């Protein structure tokens, strides 16, 4: 009799060991434990065929066996689930390429423009959005460039009428800011400017500028240098060197040309900086007293500084772009690099 149950046990263990999925586990469970047709139930029916004296022992043994089956099935469930999870399905090839979502590209000039505006906002400046179509007064007259001033030669201008033009710089922010607010003034404007230069590798009739104005009591050339130094370090790199030398712009006096240490050779001298170690980057100076006066600022009480810089020029230097036309051709082979 024990042998009989022992056979059942072996059979059960063999079947349980063969379980590879939840389904096959369920099959084994039902085969042994189903209420009506399960092996345990059907084998229990043999009880009646046994002599009376053997019946209690057989019944007890079968009940023990049932517990054994139940326990082992319980224990096998987790394994069956796990095996089942991998059962018929195969591992995916995670090395295949993902779906080609495409991210658009930033335009290098617009990226720099935003960076520049953010640096100035952090320094407490107000950013002005000004029109590209400008009057002769704001573009020239009020910046101490009256009619017939030779400095106008350097800014060959597109005219829309005798006194309306496409702005040649963003410097008119000086005049607009002084008209719009009282000192202390910290103003910046960026955007497109136009000069009558033919479109070639180094010239464009349209380019981008940033112009800056600070007017307050006690503003000195030292403040100009400090603010410039901060700005250039944020835009280029922390270890950039800066050099001011006398320069001429009609709307500032004293005026300065600002050079930075060559970012290609770190000041050692290379073809990009014509072996000088320096690269001319912007024009600056103390606001000309006439410019202050024309915009209604008392130049005996207030002083200020201003500077202007080409954003394209910075992009050319920072990214090593050799042809300015690339900025305005929208070739995705170019844009996708940014």
């Amino acid at each position: 009799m024990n042998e009989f149950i022992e056979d059942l046990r072996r059979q059960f263990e063999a079947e349980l060991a063969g379980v590879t999925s939840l389904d096959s586990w369920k099959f084994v469970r039902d085969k042994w434990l189903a209420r009506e047709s399960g092996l345990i139930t059907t084998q229990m029916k043999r009880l009646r065929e046994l002599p009376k004296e053997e019946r209690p022992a057989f019944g007890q043994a079968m009940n023990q066996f049932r517990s054994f089956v139940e326990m082992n099935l319980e224990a096998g469930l987790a394994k069956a689930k796990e095996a089942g999870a991998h059962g018929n399905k195969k591992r995916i090839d995670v090395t295949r390429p993902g779906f080609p979502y495409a991210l658009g590209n930033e335009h290098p000039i617009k990226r720099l423009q935003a960076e520049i505006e953010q640096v100035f906002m952090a320094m407490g400046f107000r950013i002005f959005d000004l029109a590209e179509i400008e009057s002769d007064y704001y573009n020239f007259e009020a910046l101490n460039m009256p009619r017939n001033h030779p400095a106008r030669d350097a800014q060959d201008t597109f005219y829309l009428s005798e006194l309306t033009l496409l702005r040649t710089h963003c410097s008119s922010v000086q005049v607009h800011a002084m008209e719009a607010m009282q000192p202390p003034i910290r103003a910046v404007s960026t955007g497109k400017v136009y000069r009558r230069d033919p479109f070639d590798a180094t010239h464009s009739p349209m380019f981008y500028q940033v112009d800056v104005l600070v007017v307050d009591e006690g503003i000195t050339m030292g403040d100009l240098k400090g603010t410039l130094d901060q700005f250039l370090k944020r835009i280029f790199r922390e270890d950039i060197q800066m050099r001011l030398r006398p320069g001429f712009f009609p709307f500032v006096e004293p005026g300065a040309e600002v050079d930075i240490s060559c970012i290609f050779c770190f000041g050692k001298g290379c073809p990009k900086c014509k072996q000088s170690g320096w690269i001319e980057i912007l024009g600056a100076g103390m606001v000309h007293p006439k410019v202050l006066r024309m915009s209604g600022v008392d130049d005996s009480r207030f002083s200020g500084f201003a500077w202007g810089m080409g954003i394209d020029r910075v992009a050319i230097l920072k990214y090593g772009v050799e042809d300015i036309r690339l900025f305005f051709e929208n070739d995705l082979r170019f844009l996708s690099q940014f």
Partner: protein
Amino acid sequence: MKISIEWLKEYVEIPEDVEKLKQDLTMSGLLVESISEYEGTPVLEIEVTSNRPDCLSHIGIAREVAAIYGRPLRMPSLQRQLHPKQDNISFAIEIVDPDLCPRYCGIVMTGFHVAESPSWLRHRLECAGMRPVNNIVDVTNYVLLEFGHPLHAFDFKLLQQGKISVARAAAGQKMTTLDGIERELDSEMLLINDGAGPVAIAGVMGGLESEISLSTDTVLLESAYFQPASVRRTSKKLGLSTEASYRFERGADWENPVPSIARACFLIKELAGGKIAGGLKDVNPIKLAPAVIELKQSRAEAILGVHLDEAFVKSTLEKLNFKPKRSGKGVWQVTCPSYRADMELEADLIEELARFYGYQNIPARYPASTRAGVPSPIFHLESSIRQILRGLGYSEAINLSFAGESEQREFPVPTSERIEILNPLTEDTQFLRTSLAGGLVRSVKRNLNHDVNRVRLFELGKVYERDAAGAPSERLALGLLGAGGWAGHNWQNLSGHFDFFHLKGIISTLLSGLRCESYEIVPADNVGWLDPLQTGALMVGGKRIGYAGALNPSIEESYKLKEPVYLAEINLKELSPYLFRPVRYEALAKYPPVERDLSVMIEREIPFAAIYKGIQGVGIAELVSVELIDIYEGNKIPPGKVSITLRFIFQDREKTLTVERVQGFSDNILAFLRESHGAERR
């Protein structure tokens, strides 16, 4: 300005090391762009800014060098006696318009031979980039390069009546200049006339008729001071810029005419054996006085942010030939040299002090700001658009703001009047663009030509037109362009071609990202550059503020585009008041939404918007959304009809929806569709 080192050395001692000279000149404001060599002589290429005409000569540069190094200046030999014992030749000078010519000097020389100049002189002219002509003309040019003062030599025998008269031209008067071009003059141009007519345009160019030739034996030398603005105006108007006009328009030295003419006489005597036959006439009806400027040391210190010694101020100014007279503690009355045309205000003197103090010696200060920065009014709009579109795969484009006649024809904007540039560079840049479409189409063409076949571009930029009053105006616009597959090639085969509804989807996503209040796209066919069968107008706040559609097939063909192109343009100025609807939190629903699909067959001509708006109008408060999830047209349904499947989402915020209520909603919608649009359930 080209400066020969060997020539410069005649006037001042310079450092052995030319590189040092280059550095020191650059840091004092005379940028030495390069050092080249002409036949063994080093030549400095100096960029002289327009405020420093006094540096447009070798002596001018020598003066700066002398000031920088504190060394003496050696002036060249001049003809001392400018009046012969007896004038052999008589001539007359008359200034009719002294406002334009305050001073005019003339002298007559004779007895020379016109010939080639000696080689040293030719070499010097060539170093400076000038072409030698003959000894007389070369001397005038030499003096120009040496003293910076333009001279002119007339063949005296060709001057009628031996007379010079300086006067404004008559309107419409004509004369032929040395370059052989006949020029028409106006009444603001100053002329040098002889007894019969014009012989030179004052300060710009001489006339052809009185030119020095090999047979010239008597010469009248002119050395004058002309009013700068007048010379500039004439030069600009005639489109004629010369070495002379370049200097006069920036401001010559009114004390220079006599030394310059004396130098020329000396050289003509030395080189060609000439002698003075008609003594110097110096007609000077308006005597110009040197500027006297008050300089307060405290002001200089306040501007520069450094402390200055009185001794430094005095010695710096004196080195530069200014005459400072102390009129109080730290106050100077400064008389400027006559050649410093740039000296007008105290600030000009402060710059001189700064130059010699050294810009590099001014310590940097970091002014603190206690105020928060303020972004521009469009910063938020622009950066939001950029961020959203970039995320949707669009790259930012920048096109030139110009358009040519042909682009204006292809991409007309219905109502606006374009703005013409009076002095365009080329025909292609004759107008300001009225639309972003032209530039974007050129950009897509460039990309397709380079086999970049999936193109997504946007441009945020101004377009320009005249306003109702005819004044030029500009406004911000957004252009969008899509062409090629909507996704890159991929092994999942999730692809398909970009079409109108992709573009519309981009616009919808953008507008919802910008929290636009409400908008719709309605059929339109009035945009010339779009396909009339595939064009929609963007309506916001009851106004048309943009267009979207397929590029007109005729433009597609003329540009030879190999992919269908879809374009949109939105007027951001009109759009912006409807954006950035304030955020207001709404409690999350506690009861689950119920989804229900409905398929109906309907006339093809009925626009989806009519169905959509109609359903919204049925008045089911629990209707949260209506989506169009399928459209079928084909042989399973009658021609002229389409089958559409709509998906509704219903939700009751107060209680769980019962099956019966949902069925009721669905029945109401079906009833509406049946009655209003003749829909049949499928």
